[in-house]
């Protein structure tokens, strides 16, 4: 293990390997303090960043942070690394890589260069450079990436912001879910997915909800996809039973042990991915996976340790989760940034920073990143912080955000962004829905050519019979 040192104004700081150096270089957050791996002073943090800036990117290929022998996520990262794609940056240090990225941003071919580079980057390299970046750097580089994915709608085109319509209900009531879905569609949301977290996890409940959303979608010929966010093994069973599954969902994390905590392995994910592909239900693309992540998930499962048993910082582990996602060519990857609670991200400042980091890291690795801009009531955050992060992500070219009635998820008990928030950021930044969905909204007279949602008289709406679907 390499030892690193830095003397700053007469004080010498020692860092015991890349795991320690990466953790100490991470912008302050409560989860790393809880894990006991954070810098103990602001000066030590900057000393670590100065040291990290001089580490060659190649070092991340020589010194795994989580052991290759015992962790299948590490094996995936190393075994799938594309050395040819890595060549343009192979001689750079982390600090020089930051400068290289920022120099690239204004160039006309920046999107194509970053797309070609993505397979040559590992999550650890991307996490490392993010730790040296200011928020504006995270925004500028993410904005320059070009990542698109498609199923019945196309996600990630420039100038577009899609939304997951999240019509959750505490008792999975069909009428409640249909009403929330109607509400969202009338406000121009749902182009990324209409996705329900079921309150009850039984396969029958999931099947009922999938039939409900599929009936709504096919009745009104909505160019979007449905998803019930249940365990991948449940979804595989539903596919075998002939239930209309569009997207295969799974939460994933950045270590093998944390994925075991979710009850998944890479081979199980592959089985789910292939089951989804076998249905061939996409019309404009065949990206069939919907994956969720979030900083702190490994620590909360006590599965956050790396080489030498040292705790790995939560942002690096989050970036490693994106290597898992990348393997299965997802339609959507959603970092649920403020969901777990203040012991991982304490306040609005930490949530905003983490949201921008996650979006940047995912995009640089080639993923269609969306962000659940959210918080819980015991965090030091409020709707103003969500407005800030939502706006920043809109500028950064975020692929999609969450849209839930009134910003209050009454089933999961947290606050996210609302249908109205999505309309705000689209209006403020001139962003539009996915093109297929936009054409559908315009065809039904629900949106004008300028992207403005039109007032609809409920009794005259083409969707007026929608709630009738649910009571059948």
């Amino acid at each position, binding site marked *: 293990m390499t030892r690193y040192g830095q003397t700053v104004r007469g004080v010498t700081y020692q860092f015991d390997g890349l795991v320690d150096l990466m953790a100490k270089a991470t912008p302050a957050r*409560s989860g790393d*303090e*809880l894990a006991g791996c954070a810098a103990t002073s602001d000066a030590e943090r900057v000393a670590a960043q100065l040291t990290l800036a001089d580490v060659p990117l190649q070092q991340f290929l020589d010194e795994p942070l989580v052991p290759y022998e015992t962790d299948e996520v590490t094996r995936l990262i190393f075994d799938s690394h594309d050395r040819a794609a890595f060549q343009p940056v192979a001689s750079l240090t982390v600090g020089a890589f930051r400068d290289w990225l920022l120099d690239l941003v204004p160039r006309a071919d920046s999107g194509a260069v970053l797309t070609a580079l993505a397979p040559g980057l590992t999550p650890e390299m991307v996490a490392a450079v993010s730790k040296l970046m200011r928020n504006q750097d995270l925004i500028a580089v993410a904005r320059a990436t070009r990542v698109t994915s498609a199923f019945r709608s196309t996600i990630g085109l420039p100038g577009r912001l899609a939304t997951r319509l999240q019509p959750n209900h505490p008792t999975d*009531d069909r*009428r409640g879910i249909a009403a929330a879905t109607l509400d969202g569609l009338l406000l121009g949301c749902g182009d990324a997915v209409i996705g329900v977290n079921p309150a009850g996890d039984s396969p029958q409940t999931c099947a009922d909800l999938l039939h409900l959303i599929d009936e709504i979608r096919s009745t009104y010929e909505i160019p979007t996809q449905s998803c019930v966010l249940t365990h991948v093994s449940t979804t595989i069973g539903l596919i075998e039973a002939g239930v209309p599954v569009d997207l295969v969902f799974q939460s994933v994390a950045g270590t093998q042990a944390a994925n075991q905590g979710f009850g998944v392995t890479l081979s199980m994910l592959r089985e789910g991915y292939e089951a989804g592909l076998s249905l061939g239900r996409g019309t404009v693309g065949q990206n069939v996976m919907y994956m969720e992540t979030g900083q702190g998930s490994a620590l909360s499962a006590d599965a956050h340790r790396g080489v030498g048993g040292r705790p790995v910082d939560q942002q690096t582990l989050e970036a490693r989760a994106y290597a898992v996602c990348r393997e299965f060519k997802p339609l959507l990857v959603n970092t649920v940034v403020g969901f777990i*609670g*203040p*012991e991982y991200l*304490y306040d609005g400042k930490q949530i905003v920073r983490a949201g921008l980091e996650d979006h940047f890291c995912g995009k640089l690795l080639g993923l269609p990143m969306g962000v659940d801009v959210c918080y*819980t*009531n*015991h965090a030091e955050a*409020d*709707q103003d912080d969500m407005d800030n992060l939502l706006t920043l992500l809109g500028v950064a070219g975020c692929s999609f955000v969450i849209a839930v009635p*009134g*910003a*209050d998820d*009454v089933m999961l*008990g*947290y*606050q996210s962004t*609302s249908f*109205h928030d999505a309309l705000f950021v689209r209006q403020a930044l001139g962003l539009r829905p996915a093109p297929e969905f936009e054409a559908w909204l315009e065809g039904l007279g629900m949106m004008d050519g300028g992207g403005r949602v039109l007032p609809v008289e409920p009794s005259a709406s083409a969707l007026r019979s929608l709630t009738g679907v649910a009571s059948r």
Partner: protein
Amino acid sequence: MPTRRVLEFRLAHAVARDAVHDPLDVDALVADLDRRGISAGPDRGKAPASGSTSATDESSNGRSLGSAIVVTSQAASRAEYLRRPDLGRLPADLSAVAPSSPADVGFVLADGLSARALQTHGPALLAALIQALPTTMTLAPPVIATQARVGLGDHIGEALGVQTVLVLIGERPGLSVADSLGIYLTHRPRPGRADSDRNCVSNIHAPGGLPYEVAARVVSGLIAGARQLGRSGVDLKDTSREVELATPDTALS
């Protein structure tokens, strides 16, 4: 969004946040328990663990559990509690918790993330639990725990020497309900128990949540099951509630 709706949202969030940060009024909680005859006030001296000294209050089935004991976790402040869940699971000092005589069931009244939930619903829920448990079961004095996480109950339960510990704890406040209680049941409590060793009955509040009496019946059934099985957790299933929830829900039609 219309002004009225924005302000309503802000009010709901403010109430939820206040519920997180409001401290537990321990004196008021003890007085409430005394008034219900659940605990014995200092003027009444020590009551036997399952005696019949307080025959005045029907809400606790006339059973006083003895004087309430107050403990706190190692989290010194609310700010530390929120950042350090590990400290919220460790007791600062358990010397006040001594096993007078081994009992079957112990009760921990924990503030959790909503002291208001415990203040509002704790005494009535405890009274319902005492009423629902068989009179043959011996009950330990109630322990009030502040800055507490569920795992603190493992230490308290072991110190009490009880077979089963019930942690009544304030749940994370949501926008619609800021004062909901949960009960975590751990059989043979000791430090190091995992969450998979526990059973939980959640969303207990009035009105709109699980009623006290229903929660108490469910827990009573779970205790009986745990004693038969020799453990609590994932292998122990609640079989009482299907019947309770089978009543037709006509509220929405």
